[in-house]
């Protein structure tokens, strides 16, 4: 056991953790919007819109995240037309490509979580709102969304942890996140176990924090 290496690599890995956290928070932010939009589309009565939303979540949940990143990072650059538009300023950066892939991926899972949360809301609550003469827009924003958020908290907490682990794939498109830096240190020092303990420990600490934050929120928003 090389303790010196562990101590020396800790600050480097901690710097890289910032990259991981940035990737995580941005993709969760965009992913939540995508998820909410697609959850609403899934509940649409129009079969075409409905199918489209289902297809989106099926494709993104049925293929590995790595494929999705590679299609966006390596694949989209191949389209000549895209290169001439302003989108290229975003798509040529591996950082944004990774965030787009993560957001689309987590969006697919989030849409499923939110959809099932919306569907478990008791119809009586919506009917009660209607009979009180509340407009359906306000019922949606003030009754359905708060209940759905509360219901989906445990599942969404899992999704955040899965996404935290997912951000490690950013290292495959040259980004130096926590896993990327860990791999770099491993391949230059050939001390995989020491680096794994430090990097794995940082990841575990983050999952621990996320887990407890969700637990706290669950308690805060429970009915009692």
């Amino acid at each position: 056991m090389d303790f010196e290496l562990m101590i020396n690599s800790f600050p480097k890995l901690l710097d890289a953790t910032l990259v991981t956290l940035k990737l995580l928070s941005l993709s969760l932010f965009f992913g939540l919007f995508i998820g909410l939009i697609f959850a609403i589309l899934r509940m649409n009565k129009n079969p075409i819109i409905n199918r489209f939303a289902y297809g989106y979540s099926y494709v993104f949940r049925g293929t590995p995240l790595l494929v999705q990143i590679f299609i966006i990072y390596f694949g989209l650059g191949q389209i000549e037309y895209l290169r001439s538009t302003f989108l290229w300023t975003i798509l040529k950066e591996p950082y944004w490509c990774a965030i787009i892939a993560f957001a689309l991926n987590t969006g697919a899972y989030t849409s499923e979580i939110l959809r099932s949360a919306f569907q478990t809301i008791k119809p009586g609550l919506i009917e009660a709102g209607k009979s009180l003469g509340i407009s359906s827009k306000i019922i949606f924003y003030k009754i359905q969304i708060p209940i759905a958020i509360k219901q989906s908290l445990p599942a969404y907490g899992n999704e955040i942890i899965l996404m935290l682990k997912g951000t490690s794939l950013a290292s495959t498109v040259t980004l130096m996140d926590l896993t990327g830096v860990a791999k770099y240190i491993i391949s230059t020092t050939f001390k995989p176990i020491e680096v794994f303990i430090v990097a794995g420990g940082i990841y575990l600490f983050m999952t621990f924090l996320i887990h407890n934050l969700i637990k706290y929120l669950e308690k805060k928003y429970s009915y009692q």
Partner: protein
Amino acid sequence: MELLAFGKTGWGDELFYATLMTLAVSVTAMFVGFFFALIFTPLKLSRHKSLNLIGNFYTTVIRGVPELLVIYLFFFGGSGAIMFVASMFGYFEYIEINAFITGSFAIGIISGAYSTEVFRGAIQSIDKGQFEAAKVLGIKKHIQFYKIILPQMLRLAIPNLSNVWQITLKDTSLISVTGLVEIMRQSYIAAGSTRDPLFFYSFAAVLYLLLTYLSMKLINKLELKYSRGF
């Protein structure tokens, strides 16, 4: 379409074999995972605090650390660990382990953590009366497990195990970083030499979708078989 031709002109046969490789790694990893689950499920259910701790340590660490990091640990550390064991037996030559074995072992350990959780949940949701009734009837411990607990456990575990299978299947794409030629690696090679990454990565996505779709169909049949009478 020419790109997908079989034979020397296209990548059809290469991708076909790569798909078989993905399936082979996934199935092996799943079985390695079952093996780990077989060890760690009893530990997690044990009444002894220390055994419990070992079981929880395994599932918490593996499920809390990115898959890629675990794969790097095995990829870079695997041959080192084996050489260390071999050196204790007096063998000091360099040993390189096969990418297939490292890969399925790494993915297997990950899938084992998920399987352990599934089995634990399934056993815990079996009615306590079942255990007591078996005890009262004087049924031997192992017969009780094989004939009473296991069939009921499988019925409860299959839907969740199908999730584990999906996760495992998708995780095998990460093995491509070690150079094992499965779907992802083959697409990477094909994309590099034809300069057509969009096509090949999209095709890889289609292959994965096909695999998940077909395996779900199969698992649904299994589910029906095991839920007879419910």
